[in-house]
């Protein structure tokens, strides 16, 4: 059986005044049914662009948009925008956006907003759709009577739950979570994580979980992908990754994460990520890498599978 989502050599470049920005540069990964792939990286590394490329929410200044996005073996990149909108988006795959709680329409009732994708994409009539919205609210732990409320009557955590309900109402197989809790407090965040776990267990959902918070990925991730300057530099089973990341960037990123329960010596990475309009030649991390060799400055490193399912894009591991 094919994986629920397979991404092959996905490219998304933007055209800007400074030149072509290579936000997503040949990204490949596989997401199995019922599993979670966490994508981590610093701001501007292309994680949200990756999500938008898969969900095909593109700005007007796209320069190049290529590669394969296979959902259950079917290449959605071959579909035109209209077919994608009708058959894939919100049906097979849905998304909870960053700061989603502020993306609710303030003048529409919560129930209607949750029900809307059903009415548009599945042709369900309004009465039935609102009933379904009540069920969806129950599912995310909000009393069904809240269908009659407006967003301003809800707290931040509840609004985020509403957005999750909205993403789930069309019963998609894949949910992209783009920083779903970054504007929330830690206790509310833990509550939302609990909810996402329960939903995944009950409905066998597959998640792409995008975040900058490495400890938080451990709440959901089966696999962790680390992005740097538009590329995945390491894709690893979660347990191996938390033990010791192999790519020099991933390793030092991990070393910069403060832990609560144990005290360790913290490190930081001097310098800053490169400008994606003019990425350095060779490995994009080489100007900041302590272990950079001559070859890193000239040639792009290959992706090496160092253990089953564990890929590193680095010359240190290439034979």
């Amino acid at each position: 059986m094919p994986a629920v989502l397979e991404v092959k050599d996905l490219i998304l470049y933007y055209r800007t005044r400074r030149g072509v920005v290579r936000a997503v540069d040949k990204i490949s990964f596989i997401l199995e049914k019922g599993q979670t792939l966490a994508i981590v990286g610093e701001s501007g590394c292309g994680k949200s662009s990756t999500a938008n490329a898969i969900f095909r929410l593109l700005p007007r200044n796209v320069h190049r948009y290529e590669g394969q996005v296979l959902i259950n073996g079917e290449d959605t990149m071959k579909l035109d925008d209209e077919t994608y909108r009708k058959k894939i988006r919100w049906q097979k795959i849905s998304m909870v956006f960053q700061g989603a709680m502020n993306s609710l329409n303030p003048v529409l009732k919560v129930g209607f907003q949750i029900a809307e994708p059903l009415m548009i994409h599945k042709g369900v009539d309004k009465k039935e759709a609102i009933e379904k919205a009540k069920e969806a609210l129950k599912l995310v732990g909000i009393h069904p009577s809240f269908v009659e409320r407006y967003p301003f009557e809800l707290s931040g955590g509840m609004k985020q739950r509403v957005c999750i309900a909205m993403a789930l109402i069309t019963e998609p197989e894949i949910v992209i979570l783009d920083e779903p809790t970054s504007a929330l407090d830690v206790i509310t965040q833990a509550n939302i994580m609990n909810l996402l776990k329960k939903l995944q267990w009950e409905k066998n959902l597959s998640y792409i979980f995008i975040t900058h918070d490495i400890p938080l990925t451990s709440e959901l991730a089966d696999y962790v992908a680390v992005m740097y300057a538009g590329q995945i530099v390491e894709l690893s089973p979660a347990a191996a990754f938390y033990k010791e990341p192999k790519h020099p960037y991933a390793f030092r990123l991990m070393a910069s994460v403060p832990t609560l329960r144990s005290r360790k010596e913290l490190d930081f990475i001097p310098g800053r990520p490169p400008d994606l309009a003019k990425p350095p030649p060779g490995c994009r991390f080489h100007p900041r890498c302590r272990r950079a060799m001559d070859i890193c400055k000239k040639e792009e490193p290959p992706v090496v599978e160092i253990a089953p399912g564990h890929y590193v894009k680095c010359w240190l591991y290439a034979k």
Partner: protein
Amino acid sequence: MAKLLEIKGLKKYFEIKKGFFSKPVFLKAVDGVSLEIKKGEAVSIVGESGCGKTTLGKTILRLYEPTGGKIVFEGRDITHEEAKNLMWYRRAASLVQQDPYGSLPSFFTIYKILEEPLIIHKVGTKEERREMIYKALEAVKLTPVDFFASKYPHMLSGGQMQRVCLARAIILKPKFIVADEPVSMLDASVRIEILKLMRELQEKMGVSFIYITHDLATTRYFSEKLMIMYAGKAVEKGPIEKVIADPLHPYTEALLNAIPDPEPENRKKIRHVPPGEPPNLVNPPPGCRFHPRCPRAMDICREKEPPEVKIGDRTVACWLYSEK
């Protein structure tokens, strides 16, 4: 160590509805917080958004006039001192804010940004000021100094801008700095750099720090003492390692339970955290403000506010630990 700053039962209410015929409505952002800071000591204040931690920091700096309580700095009561008599305090205490992008004037060069406080406080001649600016830039490791002094803020990265903010905060050689979420807008790899730098400044210059943050995990890398706030109140105070290893207040416990460390087992378990969200500070619940969410709430918690109890070198405001 000598006492530098003492605040006692500090209150700051914001009037959100003027009372003319009706009673005015207040938002009780800080409601009776006490804290002592010694010379050269770093204290972290942790709480969720809206718990009053930023208001507390600003009130301590007298950017707000307190509604009640007392602020004593080096033995001088400055609670209701007039602004024109506070110039010395502005020199002795400074602030680093959360957003480096918004707190630097975009049309000033870094040199001008750092010279401004010196001019306002009439410090030194032009030559002496130059010397001080270069020293401050060196202290925050923005070298080569000449290169950075002539830049404008937009030419720098977030981490570099925050270092300019730090340089501005230390240039008048203060005794005390309030750092309000200084790293929360920065990327993970830069955060530690700034925290380490702050720690270094604190140790070298003997400055006292209040580090305000929502991120409990970073506090142990910066300070020894911790104060946890909830809904305008201090619920627990004590040495960080002890608080983290053995939280006394149920809220502290909930906060610790909510924060994951990177462990692969996390995804298989549900975290024990209380449902709901912090109360509205216009109309906080009676008794203990945490009682509606507290798994260990008793009858008395709903009626009477818990007093602060001293347990060794720690303080906790919870009925579980006090005589009823």
